[in-house]
Each structure stands twice: as C-alpha cells, then as structure tokens.
C-alpha cells in the first residue's frame, strides 16, 4: 500500500471514531509538520503550537475529508497557512506576492568566500540566509529541500503555477549562493 493510500485509510478510520488511527496518522506526520514550522519560524514553542493546531484541524476535518489531494500535500498546506498567519501576527507585515518579494541586500560580511570558513560558520550563514528569504520563497525552498516535494506539489501548496515555483526557487538559490558565499566577486 502506498503512503498516501494508507493515510487515506487512516483518515477514514478517524472519521469512524478510531482514536488509534489518529495516533498512527500523528506518528507518521507530526515530525515533518513540526520541522517545517520550526524551519519557517525558527521558534520551537511556536512550531509546537502550529503542529498541534494542524493536527487538531485534521481531526476536526476528518468528518468531511475527501481525498482530492495527496494527504501530505493537504497537511503541508494547512501548515503553510498557519505559519503565514503566525508570521503576520509576529511581524505585522503582509506576505507579499511574488512580484513584491524583494530579496534583502547582502552586507559586506556575507561576501567572504565560503571556502575560508569553518563548518559552524557555514551553517550559521545557511540559517541566516534562509531566514532572510521572503516568506513565499522560504517556504518553497523548505518544502523542496527538506521535504523532498516536487515543483508540482509545492505549486499546489502555495496555490501558484509550476512556473512560478520554478522562478521562486531559482531566485532563492541565487540569493542563497550569494548570501552563503559561493559566488565569487567576478561572477556577481
């Protein structure tokens, strides 16, 4: 049985009041949800709250659930929406559309070549670079890189076209390369 089929069967069982099925569903997915929320918000208590809210929404929606999309895609869509809401509350800023997604300017400190850096410093640069990405680019990068989703799945989660995802990821990668220090002065 494929993973998605199993999830659909589990959701049917949850619908019929099977608490064990909900626990199994939770065990299968709660780490992924938590990790996505944590990497997006970079805050563990907030990621916990979001993970809990995601699964409570799944639990509530079990009665009306129909497997139109892949279960994990639906789960990530709920997670993304809650993360964006949290970000709006936290920063009181609007999530811009792709046209308005301005990548931040790099400071001079970011321009030192990565080859001269320690591993810990590279990691720090990676974290800083991802955190600096605009929300729509960041979520696309996280879903692709850490959750192994395809462009098509990311497009479904973000509610945009595959070409839009392709463009966002390309821009994000270019920013990350410059920010981390993999682009030499000549090629900038």
């Amino acid at each position: 049985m494929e993973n998605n089929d199993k999830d659909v069967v589990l959701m049917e069982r949850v619908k019929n009041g099977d608490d064990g099925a909900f626990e199994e569903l939770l065990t299968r997915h709660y780490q992924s949800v938590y990790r996505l929320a944590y990497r997006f918000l970079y805050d563990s208590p907030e990621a916990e709250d979001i993970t809990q809210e995601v699964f409570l929404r799944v639990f509530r929606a079990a009665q009306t659930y129909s497997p139109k999309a892949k279960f994990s895609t639906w789960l990530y869509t709920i997670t993304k929406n809650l993360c964006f809401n949290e970000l709006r509350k936290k920063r009181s800023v609007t999530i811009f559309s792709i046209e308005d997604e301005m990548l931040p300017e790099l400071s001079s400190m970011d321009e030192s070549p990565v080859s001269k850096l320690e591993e810990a410093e590279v990691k720090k640069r990676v974290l800083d670079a991802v955190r600096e990405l605009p929300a729509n680019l960041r979520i696309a990068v996280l879903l692709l890189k850490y959750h192994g989703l395809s462009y098509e799945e990311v497009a479904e989660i973000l509610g945009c076209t595959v070409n839009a995802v392709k463009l966002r990821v390309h821009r994000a990668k270019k920013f990350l390369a410059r920010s981390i220090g993999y682009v030499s002065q000549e090629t900038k």
Partner: protein
Amino acid sequence: MNCQWVQENLSALLDRELPDNQKELVESHLSSCFQCKAEFDSLSHAWDALSSWEDKDPPLHLKDSILRAAKKEKASNFIRVLLPVAAVFVIAVSIFLFYRGGNYYGKQVVLTDQKEIQTPLPVESVMVDENEIIKNLQLLEEKEFFESVEVLKTIDYLPLLDEKVDNRTSMGYYSA
C-alpha cells in the same frame, strides 16, 4: 545556445525537474560554457550547504499533548452533540406524555358517555299528591311570615335628626 535561458533552467536541472530533452541541451551547454558552469556550481554548492541545517526533533511531550488535545476536543464535541439530542429527547417525551395523558382522559369520557348511553339512569316513578304540596307551601309561607315579625321586633329606632340642618328623617335609620 542562449546563456540566459540556460541559467534560468539551472535550478530546475539541480532539482531534476527539467524534461529530458531540455536537460540534455543544458548539460551540453555547461560542458562548453565556463560562466554558466560557474553559476551552476555556485547554486549547487549553496543547495548542498542547506543540508548542514539538520532536522530538529520535536519535543517528546508534543505527541502526547496533541493526543490529549484531540481527546478533549472529541469529548467537547460529544457534549456539544449530546446536549441538543438530550433536549430534543426531553421535549419529545414531554409531548408524548402530555398527549398520552389527554387521550387517556378522552378515552375515559368516551367510555363514560358510552356507559351512559348503554345503561341509562334508573327513573323512579313517585306518586305525588298535589293537595299535600299546597298544604306544605302554606306552612312554609306562614313560617316565613312569623320569622319576619320576630325580626321587626328587634329593630331599634335611631333618634330624630335636626330638620333645619338636614331635611332627612330618621325613617329607615335602624340597626338590624
């Protein structure tokens, strides 16, 4: 081959999202274009560097707290569903008892009516002497007359009022 088109597709090549025909074109170009190859390498290194951000495990209590929250939600849903059902049940039972009681009395009335129809009250036939009735009536009238006389004897007349002040007489002012 256009370098700009190639560079726009480098990211998709890294993500293995390019169709086979485009993938061959880009790879062929990279083997001969130093600048595009440098761009590809920088993107590739940056993408690989993201792997240094390890997965963070959720806290141990998280799963249990989610399960507890779900159970609590289920219990509150149950109560939320049960309350209206219980209310409807109580109302239905009340209505049933009310109408059942009404029918019960109704049946009694019907039964009583039927009984009355089926078994009419027995009528006693009594022979009445008219002269005796008249005699009794006369006795009753005499008794009432003598009682009235006795009442009149008990009347105490009130003193006369000053006619100048008030033309009224004391007639009729009595205490019974």
